[in-house]
């Protein structure tokens, strides 16, 4: 337990310090959201209708891009080998690393959401709904993306291939995240149903992600 806590603390510290890159994710999120009005035109009514979708897409891409390095840096300096050989089960270590990554890179996205909501002309309720669904949904993105990160380190390939592999897995999260926030803002449908499915997706990926990532690390590192 102390080992896992130490791992989480270490990862967060690395991510927040110089060269960490956790906050670059927020900057990327901001840039993507700012790009959208240029693409669809500065129509405030349209933007407020598309707002939840834009925020969700931005968060999805931002968390995917920062995930690329989840295991890579540890692999380069050799600490990944120590983690693999240590007495803590690799599955738990993977889960701890993903949790640390979510705390360092996922939470800032959610904190930034209200500010970006202002840019997209979202009202209080809409911003709250998007932030809440992001809070429930981004763990699923991190934990499924971790599988891609583990494959990236074992294959020495990152970037585009990983995006192609991981993005289809994150489609359900996107569907239910946007559906839940739309339901809270306008929809005739209830907020509860898609939101609970979103929570279920997060819980499932919480279980599946560490196992798949540990399996690919164990079989892939040699």
């Amino acid at each position, binding site marked *: 337990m102390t080992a896992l806590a130490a791992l989480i603390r270490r990862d967060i510290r690395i991510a927040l310090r110089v060269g960490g890159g956790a906050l670059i994710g927020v900057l990327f999120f901001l840039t993507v959201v700012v790009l959208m009005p240029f693409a669809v035109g500065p129509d405030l009514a349209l933007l407020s209708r598309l707002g939840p979708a834009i925020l969700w897409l931005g968060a999805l891409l931002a968390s995917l891009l920062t995930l690329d390095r989840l295991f890579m840096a540890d692999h380069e300096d050799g600490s990944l080998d120590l983690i693999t050989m240590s007495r803590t089960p690799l599955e738990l270590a993977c889960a701890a690393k993903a949790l640390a990554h979510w705390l360092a890179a996922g939470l800032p996205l959610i904190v930034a959401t209200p500010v970006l909501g202002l840019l997209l002309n979202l009202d209080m309720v809409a911003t709250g709904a998007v932030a809440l669904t992001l809070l429930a949904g981004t763990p699923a993105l991190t934990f*499924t993306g971790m*599988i891609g990160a*583990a*494959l990236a380190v*074992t*294959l020495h*390939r990152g970037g585009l*291939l990983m995006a*192609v*592999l991981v*993005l*289809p*897995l994150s*489609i*359900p999260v996107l*569907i239910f995240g946007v559906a839940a926030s739309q339901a809270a803002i306008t929809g005739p449908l209830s907020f509860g149903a898609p939101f609970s499915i979103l929570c279920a997706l997060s819980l*499932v990926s919480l279980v*599946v992600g560490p196992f*798949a990532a540990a*399996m*690919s690390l164990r*079989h*892939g590192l040699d």
Partner: protein
Amino acid sequence: MTLIDLANPTRFLALTARVLPWLAAATIILLTIGLYQSAFAPDDYQQGATVKIMFIHVPNAWLSMFVWGVMSVASLGTLVWRHPLADVAAKSAAPIGAAFTFLALVTGSLWGRPMWGTYWEWDARLTSVLILFLMYLGLMALWRAVEDPSRAARAAAVLTLVGAINLPIIKFSVDWWNTLHQPASVMRMGGSTLDKSFLIPLLVMAIAFTLLFVTLHLAAMRNEILRRRVRSLQMMQASRVAFSSEVGTGSREESASKEAGAA
């Protein structure tokens, strides 16, 4: 004959060489019967002649999931039992599965145009099958991106097993969500709701398509084994050439140093 006997690629090649002609013949006969029967099946009272698309569409859709299932079993074979042919099976199944999925999507949208009034609808069944198609393409990209086949095999196996979560979602999407796609009518509790005049051609076509998949898959596996052999022979030859030239330059250097020493 157990699965472990097939671990020897040469034995596998010999066995499939004997089996394949029979399989191909059975596929052709069944496909002919199935196509004949579905061509002369009566028109539906509501859908008219478009019901015949179903005889192609449903077997393709079944196989799109069945192939991923085969790949998942093969992935278990790669990761758990380290069966030497498991990754060959997984690799050669992916393009075939992608083709079946693509055909299921295309025939479905051709049917959807006259019946639903749209080629594409973002409903749960269609979306989940589209995700399946994207995952097939992603797997194929993964196989192409990594040179070392054993490394690619393990990564692809992990990804295949993760992607297998999608299969029950596709199967039950029509029950869980209120979709435009009709719910299951052949395999369901309380018997099929299909009339016999449609059910029999459909089952014949399903068996024929499954045989088609088995035939294509075995042939693709043979090709893959042969391709790997050719590749390893090429590598051996290349290394022999490199080695001999290395020895050549080495001796030249040696003689050069000798000359230098003499001078």
